[in-house]
C-alpha cells in the first residue's frame, strides 16, 4: 500500500476543498487553521453563528466559555441551540451542534463566566479570542487578558438592529510597546455610564442583525489566522484598525460603514507604557471591572 503523501487527510480535502481552492487560501491556509486554537467567550447571538462557521472551516481546537443555560427566549437568534436543549449549559449545547457539523475539530466547553481569576488559565490555551459577550465588564476583562497574553481579539456587539465589529491586538504587540494594534481600552478608554446601558433584554435585538455580526466575526477571525505572523514591518507601526458599523433598520435596507480608529494609546491603562496591569493584579482583584463599569454587571449579564 502506498503511504499517504499529502499534508491533509483525504477527508479534509473533501470537506474543505471549496475553501482551499480560494485564491490566497490553499493547503497552507487549511494547515494554518488546523493548527489554530480559538476561544469564543459567549455562546449567544454572536457566539452561535461565529462558532458554526469557525467549526465548519476546520479550526483545530475551539473553546466556548459561557456560564448560562439555554432559554426559549434565546432561540429566535441563537440558532445553534435548540428547544430540546433548553436548560442545558449554552457552551455544551453549542458544542453538541458543532460536533455534529464537524467532528474533526476538538472542542472544550467552559460552563462558567470568564472571571479575572480564571481568565489566564483559559485564554492562555488559545491563539485568538472572539468577544461574543454582552456587557462592558466582560469586554474590558477579555481585552486586558488578551493584552497580557498577547492574543488577537475579534470583538463584535449588537443591539436592536445595529452592530459593530473591530479587530484588536492585531498584529499583537507587547505591553508597553507602541507596536501592534490597539486594545479595547485604547479605543474605548472610559466605559459608558451604567445608566446609559441598554441590554438585549431591555432593548431587544433583531436576530439577523446580531447573526450578521457573528458570521462576520468568524470571517475576520479566519483572516487573522490565515495571515498568521506574516505582518510586514510597516504594518506593525501605528496600526489604525477599522471599526465596522452595521445597520439593518426595520424600515430600510442594510448598510455598513467602515470608520478609521486610533492606534495604540501611549498612556493606555492596559497596553500603555507605564501600565501596572499584570496577570497577578488581574487575579488578586485589584482591577475591579464591576466597579469600573459603574457597579452593574456580574449576575445580570445575559449574553444575547
Amino acid at each position, binding site marked *: 500500500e502506498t503511504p499517504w503523501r499529502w499534508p491533509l487527510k483525504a477527508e479534509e480535502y473533501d470537506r474543505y476543498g471549496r475553501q482551499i481552492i480560494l485564491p490566497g487560501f490553499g493547503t497552507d491556509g487549511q494547515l494554518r487553521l488546523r493548527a489554530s486554537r480559538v476561544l469564543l467567550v*459567549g455562546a*449567544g*447571538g*454572536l*457566539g452561535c453563528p461565529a462558532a458554526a462557521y469557525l467549526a465548519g472551516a476546520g479550526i483545530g481546537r475551539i473553546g466556548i466559555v459561557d456560564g448560562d443555560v439555554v432559554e426559549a427566549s434565546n432561540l429566535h437568534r441563537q440558532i445553534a441551540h435548540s428547544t430540546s436543549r433548553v436548560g442545558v449549559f449554552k457552551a455544551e449545547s453549542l458544542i453538541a451542534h458543532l460536533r455534529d457539523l464537524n467532528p474533526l475539530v476538538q472542542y472544550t466547553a467552559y460552563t462558567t463566566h470568564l472571571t479575572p481569576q480564571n481568565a489566564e488559565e483559559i485564554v492562555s490555551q488559545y491563539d485568538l479570542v472572539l*468577544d*461574543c*459577550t*454582552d*456587557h*462592558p465588564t466582560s*469586554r474590558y476583562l477579555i481585552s486586558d487578558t488578551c493584552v497580557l497574553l498577547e492574543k488577537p481579539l475579534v470583538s*463584535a*456587539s*449588537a*443591539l*436592536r438592529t*445595529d*452592530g*459593530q465589529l473591530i479587530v484588536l491586538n492585531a498584529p499583537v504587540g507587547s505591553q508597553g510597546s507602541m507596536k501592534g494594534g490597539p486594545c479595547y481600552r485604547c*479605543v*474605548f478608554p*472610559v*466605559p*459608558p*455610564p451604567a445608566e*446609559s*446601558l*441598554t*441590554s*438585549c433584554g431591555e*432593548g431587544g*435585538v433583531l436576530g439577523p442583525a*446580531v447573526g450578521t*455580526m457573528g458570521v462576520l466575526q468568524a470571517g475576520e477571525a479566519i483572516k487573522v489566522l490565515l495571515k498568521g505572523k506574516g505582518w510586514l514591518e510597516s504594518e506593525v507601526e501605528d496600526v*489604525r484598525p477599522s*471599526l465596522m*458599523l452595521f*445597520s439593518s433598520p426595520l424600515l430600510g435596507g442594510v448598510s455598513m*460603514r*467602515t*470608520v*478609521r*480608529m*486610533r492606534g495604540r494609546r501611549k498612556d493606555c491603562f492596559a497596553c500603555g507604557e507605564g501600565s501596572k496591569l499584570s496577570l497577578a493584579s488581574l487575579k488578586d482583584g485589584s482591577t475591579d471591572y464591576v466597579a469600573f463599569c459603574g457597579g452593574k454587571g456580574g449576575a445580570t449579564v445575559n*449574553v*444575547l
Partner: protein
Amino acid sequence: MVTATENAQLRVVVEFSGGLEMLFSDQKRHVISIPTTDENGKPVTVAYLIEYLCKNVMKDSRKELFVLDSQIRPGILVLINDADWELEGEEKYAIQNGDNILFVSTLHGG
C-alpha cells in the same frame, strides 16, 4: 451693519447611530447650517457643534445621555469624515464646510 463673513454658514452633515438617533427625533441624518465663526469671531469647532446640537437639534430632555459635564459622554464615539476624532484634534477640530460628523453609541449587546 452685518458683514458677509458674519452671515456665512457652514453646511455640516451630522449623523447618529447605535441608538443615539433616538435622542434626535429618531432621525439618523441631519443636514444643518452653522455659522463659520463663534461669538468671539473664532472658527467654529466640534465643541461648538456639540453645544449647538444640544440647544437646537435635540428634542429629548435627557441631555446627559449625550453630554456629561460639557463633554461627550463616555461610550459615544465621534467620527470626523469617517475617522476617530482623536486623529483630528478632538473637540478643537475646526469644522470645514461639507464635513461629515458621525456620533456613534458603542454597543455592548451580543
